[in-house]
């Protein structure tokens, strides 16, 4: 899905935990995430802290969309 959407020339960032799969499906912008059942969450944190963490990750993803790249890039 990532690759086909990007084929239209729209930058796309893949947020996923198993980044080897992200690469094998052809994602160019990759943000590694926390865990498979809660990629952008962490139930072991207090809810405010979890939100802060999620915000940092999503911001990183948005920033990745505004970053020129020429090859597969992990934004960590």
């Amino acid at each position: 899905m990532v690759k086909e959407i990007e084929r239209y020339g729209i930058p796309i960032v893949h947020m996923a935990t198993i980044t080897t799969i992200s690469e094998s499906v052809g994602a160019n912008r990759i943000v590694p995430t926390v865990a498979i059942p809660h990629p952008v969450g962490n139930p072991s944190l207090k809810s405010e802290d979890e939100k802060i963490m999620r915000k940092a990750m999503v911001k990183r993803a948005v920033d990745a969309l505004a970053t020129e790249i020429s090859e597969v890039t992990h934004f960590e």
Partner: protein
Amino acid sequence: MSDGFKVLYYVNQFFGQIGGEDKAGMKPEFHSEKIGPALGFEQLLKGEGQVVGTIICGDNYFNENKEESLEYILNLVKQEAPDVFVAGPAFNAGRYGVACAEISRAVAEELNIPVVTGMYIENPGLDTCKQVAYVVSTSDNAGGMRKALPAMANIAYKLGKGLEIGSPEEEGYIARGMRKTIIVEKRGSLRAVEMLIKRLKGEEFETEMPMPVFDVVEPALAIKDLSKATIALCTSGGIVPAGNPDRIQSASAQKWGKYDVSGRDALNAPDFYTTHGGYDPVYANEIPDRVAPLDILKELQKEGYIGNVYEFFYTTTGTGTSVSNAVKFGTEIGKELKEAGVDGVILTST
């Protein structure tokens, strides 16, 4: 049997009969018994090999703690010193396939022990290990176990006995990208001319040198000004409105859905939940934004960090979904996003 060759077996929590998604977080364990497919496997070794134990690890644990898991498993393999290592088969299970592939590669490359595993041709783990392991081509689901195990056992038997392994076609494994010198009756020029004639006649012919297919999409240009950009949110994590109105399948998705989220601040419970059948849904059902973070995108919009969040949220289920369907979904969704003038997309996966 004591003189036979030794096989060590790897399975996930499910095939290791520990449990389903609720146990996917278990650490790797060694059992000296034969468990799950390992049990039937030994019977297929013609009495000449024995399975000396089963390593079981949760799919989530392995993928989330790859280095630690690999180190632990490699140490176990070193201790047991099998003649052949067997993993899976993983069919089309993504996390299990990646685990089998990473372990297979490490055992083959670092310990120099021959490895047999089994996967469906679209398994995302395949490319990691097919050059160093014998990967038997399986069906996409566990219904193919009865066909996969004998093929895997046959290769393991030959490896254990030091016999030569035949071609991928003969043995049922996925081509490893190696070339082997063989003697054929007709010389090359003759074969090439025969192929050419067939081609000119429009008949079917089989190339002796299939070219690899590379389909790489270049990175799209970056967004120039985020504060004016419209960002769309998309997920393969199966987040849907409560009741799953479009009945998106919980696995092997045949369709995707889009839902108007322009009036929402978050994808909160109980209005949304996950229909994905491939991971433990507890955390996503508590707070669906943990999978598809609409809450944060809306905050960033309010703060003016991004211009807008696209009014529709796109979703499907990414477990067991065929590559052909995923391509179709991506093409359809991308077309809509392009026409809507969306500037960038966040796609989350579980």
